[in-house]
């Protein structure tokens, strides 16, 4: 079969297999198969290929999907998995410890300076128009004592900002939706999620939104100090 006939045979086979052929095209294919019986093998092979393509194409298409947004509640669970499986920054720090042994005194000094900075700077600032909102997501329900302690730690860190406690994602999301949305007002939302082992910070400052997640490392206080430093850097 020459290439012209080959292309015609392919077109006819395609249309007949897809049930898109006219009566004339169906008759043309029949005539071709009668005159060249070896094409029957070709047609069978072609039909097998079509079946295989019909099986595989939906999966290929789904693999390339881009629509759909990761639900917010899934993030924490997945990040916990990352931390547990790959270690993350905390584990890396542990590995690198031997390399920085000689610099311990310098780090100690730096930590002391940082603590002074974290404690002193907020006391010197005059909070004009800024808004800090703090919440705890306690989905476990069975660790009330721990949550109470954590709430006290959060309260101590951001005096003057009441700490809200939510037992479900839905309640938390409703709270977030109801927050002030005046773009001129600097705002920081700090959400502690013990189940996910992280503190999430989002908000806006100087008209620009910001967002950061802080995995719990050593303890809640240490993590909250990092959160506070981050918030201060945003201009609060």
């Amino acid at each position, binding site marked *: 079969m020459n290439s012209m006939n080959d292309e015609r045979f392919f077109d006819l086979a395609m249309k007949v297999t897809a049930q898109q052929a006219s009566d004339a095209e169906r008759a043309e294919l029949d005539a071709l198969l009668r005159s060249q019986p070896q094409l029957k093998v070709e047609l069978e092979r072609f039909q097998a290929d079509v079946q295989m393509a019909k099986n595989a*194409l939906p*999966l290929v298409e789904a*693999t390339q999907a881009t629509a759909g947004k990761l639900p917010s509640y899934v993030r924490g669970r997945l990040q916990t998995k990352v931390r547990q499986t790959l270690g993350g920054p905390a584990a890396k720090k542990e590995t690198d410890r031997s390399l920085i042994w000689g610099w311990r005194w310098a780090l100690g000094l730096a930590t002391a300076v940082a603590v002074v900075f974290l404690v002193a700077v907020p006391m010197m600032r005059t909070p004009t128009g800024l808004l800090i909102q703090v919440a705890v997501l306690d989905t476990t329900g069975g660790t009330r004592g721990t949550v109470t302690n954590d709430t006290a730690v959060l309260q101590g860190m951001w005096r003057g900002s009441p700490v809200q406690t939510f037992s479900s994602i839905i309640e938390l999301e409703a709270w977030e939706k109801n927050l002030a949305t005046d773009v001129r007002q600097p705002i920081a939302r700090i959400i502690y999620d013990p189940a996910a082992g992280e503190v999430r910070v989002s908000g806006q400052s100087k008209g620009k939104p910001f967002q950061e997640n802080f995995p719990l490392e050593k303890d809640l206080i240490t993590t909250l100090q990092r959160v506070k430093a981050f918030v201060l850097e945003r201009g609060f």
Partner: protein
Amino acid sequence: MNLPDLTSLQQGDPSAWDAAFHWLWPTVFAVAQLKLQSYFPSEIEDIAIEALEELVEKVRAVKSADELKPLAASIAHHRAVSLLRERFAKKRGEGKTDSLDAATDEGQTKHEPLSEDSPLADLDQKELAQRLGKSISELKPPLGEILSDFFLRGLRYEEIARNRGVAIGSVGVYLKRGLEAMRRIWGEREEK
């Protein structure tokens, strides 16, 4: 989004993973939906999440960021197929063979979803991921779209030419080229 930085992912960088999870979610969700929508739609999200968790476990064995999407899709596919097998086996064991039809939409009767795609279901996770990766790299636009328009959506040559902005005479050429690529990628079972 650009491809994630594989090294950062392998080191467990939370922000790199954050971006990767957002990028991969549509894939794992769509694959799980493909398999489970008709029978167990409430399981789709769980399977998608579990697929991403399994991807985290396997990321250190990944050699290139290009492999992430096909691997995530392959994991989601296998998890969905396992769930279907498990549930159908349970139903058969309980003698509830007719309940599957009750789960269909619009009064149509559907077959068990495993019978028709068993060649895919039989591919192991790595092989399926490799074939998906090859398909994505070989079926560049508009080739993949034209194949899907014709074989999955049943569009006619004229409609495909109009929708995809190609000459009607070239639709058949695209289909032939696409089908040959599919045969190369999916037709032969690799020797293990």
